[in-house]
């Protein structure tokens, strides 16, 4: 499927800056080199030396509209974005796409929580244009904090279901998932807590894993990356895996030949058997089933973390 993942920088000019909701600014940016930003795509921007990603809410007439929420714990990124005024220029990337809207499902459910609406607004417009059967669920703390609400009500009518916490109409995840039939795809973007709740319930109901779509920024693992060692019986060496290398890379540097393809924990070609280990294995792949995780490991993404008692180490079969 079309994914655009190469970062290309250019310059954009702010042509409109206004309030979209409480604490949310709407920025319309005219890039020097216009490019189509399909639904689900985002741009990276650099402000005050910080790099941030924002979904493109709308792409029209060569201009991109972003919505930026002022983060309470902002390290300066959203503050700087809120300070932008018409005429200001900023470093901005071409659109990147890793959350594409598919084609061919029988039904679609869009689930947006808070500022997550920015990733789904354009998808709603496309589903309407394509004449699809869809429901657009929008969850927020309070109406004044929900950007784009009026436009969404006008565009989607009865297909829009609004849940507002401070009106006592908060979201019931189970009720949303009751609507999921075979061949229904759910696209979601929102707070981690909301997305985790949906994922848990999705798995519990044994719904098709591939039909739940959300923006993945890579599985960052259960524990932070630590240095550990890996050894292979008969090889005689102990290979160190520093924090900035994967186990696969460290083995390659040591001259161990490994079979691999995707290098992102999906294909399973670099999986090896685990002989023994000290510490905790941090499985970061999506290939191994739960039962397989006790005896195997995916070299390209997974690591070993310390359990506090011993230096983390791993003994594996020769790849």
């Amino acid at each position, binding site marked *: 499927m079309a994914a655009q993942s190469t970062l290309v920088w250019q310059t954009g000019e702010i042509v409109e800056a206004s309030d979209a909701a409480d604490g949310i600014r709407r920025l319309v940016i005219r890039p020097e080199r216009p490019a189509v930003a399909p639904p689900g795509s985002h741009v990276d921007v650099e402000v005050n030396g910080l790099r941030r990603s924002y979904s493109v809410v709308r792409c029209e007439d060569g201009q991109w509209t972003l919505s930026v929420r002022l983060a309470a714990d902002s390290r300066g990124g959203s503050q700087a974005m809120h300070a932008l005024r018409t005429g200001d220029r900023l470093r901005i990337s071409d659109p990147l796409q890793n959350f594409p809207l598919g*084609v*061919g499902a029988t039904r679609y459910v869009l689930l947006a929580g808070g500022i997550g609406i920015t990733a789904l607004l354009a998808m709603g417009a496309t589903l309407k244009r394509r004449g699809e059967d869809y429901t657009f669920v929008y969850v927020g703390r309070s109406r004044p904090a929900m950007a784009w609400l009026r436009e969404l009500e006008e565009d989607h009518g009865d297909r829009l279901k609004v849940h507002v916490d401070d009106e006592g109409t908060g979201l019931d995840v189970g009720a949303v998932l009751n609507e999921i039939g075979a061949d229904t795809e759910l696209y979601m973007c929102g707070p981690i807590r909301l997305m985790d709740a949906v994922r848990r319930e999705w798995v519990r109901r044994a719904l098709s894993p591939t039909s739940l779509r959300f923006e993945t920024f890579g599985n960052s693992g259960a524990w932070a990356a630590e240095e550990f060692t890996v050894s292979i019986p008969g090889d005689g060496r102990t290979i160190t895996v520093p924090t900035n290398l994967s186990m696969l890379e460290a083995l390659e540097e040591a001259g161990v030949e490994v079979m691999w393809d995707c290098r992102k924990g999906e294909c399973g070609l670099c999986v090896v058997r685990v002989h023994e280990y000290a510490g905790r294995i941090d499985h970061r792949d999506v290939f191994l089933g739960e*039962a397989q995780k006790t005896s195997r490991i995916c070299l390209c993404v997974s690591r070993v973390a310390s359990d506090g008692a011993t230096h983390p180490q791993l003994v594996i079969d020769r790849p």
Partner: protein
Amino acid sequence: MVLDIAQQASVTSKIFAFPLNAWYVAAWDHEVTNKAPLARTVAGRPLALWRGTDGRVSALADACWHRLAPLSKGAIIGDELQCPYHGLRYNRAGRCTAMPAQQTINPSATVPSYPVVERHRYIWVWLGDPDLADPGQVPDMHQMDSPEWAGDGETIHAGCNYQLVLDNLMDLTHEEFVHSSSIGQAELSEAEFEVTHDDKHVTVSRWMLGIDPPPFWRKNMRDKFPGFSGKVDRWQIIRYEAPSTICIDVGVARAGSGAPEGDRSQGVNGYVMNTITPESDRSSHYFWAFMRNYRLDSQSITTQLRQGVHNVFGEDEDMLIAQQKAIDANPDYEFYSLNIDAGGMWVRRILDRMLQAEGR
């Protein structure tokens, strides 16, 4: 001025590119079933089409995500398509739902799924930007499934660029020479014609008054008015809708009975429905039907008309294939235009603008 000449050069191009942001017919409704997938190439893209248990049609790229084996040789399992090689299974959105010999499914495993609309007895697909796939843009061919019209048609797998078929249908003076035994007559090239157009339609109208009906039309008049003889007023109103649908309002009525003014009660009226799907640069799927608005209950007339038009269009097919061969055999020769090409030239200009809008 330079720009104008450059544009004219692309408008008279001999191998015309096809727009992708458009609905094209992939198949007749009855060709796509729940029993076995159908393989068909549309606008250069091989597709596997099948019908789900609820009757809805899906279209996936005809190549498995894994090693690109053609899914159209696979099996339909419920609503899903199973690869014939290693059994990977795909749902209607093209997402893999089963992989061999592993407990999980690679989340990247997806085959492109294309927007599909079933309308007017045809399965329409959209190969371009799916965000623009508005079903409201499916061309109007309502006579195909209206209770006021009856008829049937066929598909010609035409060995020529789709634009040659459009040229053929936008100017019917060729009937005098290609179809002399059925619908051709000298008055076709003698009668005046009128061309109108907007940003997606071109209409070419021609009336021939007080003429002898050619054999095809005499037979049709006698089906409605047994024993008919005498002169007729004949009309051909060719209506093109971008990118490649042409519905031709054709008929004859007793001469002087008021048909040009709108009273067609003393005549017979048919619609030649044509929609041409580019398959490759040099081949097309040409879907046609002949619909009529009289003697709706007569299957024998439906069969006779389908066979009659089949014979007529066979003559066109021979000419189009020969023309494509001559074009390819003479790469250094250009096209020149005649006055009769006005309709076809407006069609080319509309297509050229669509291609420009797609940046092609």
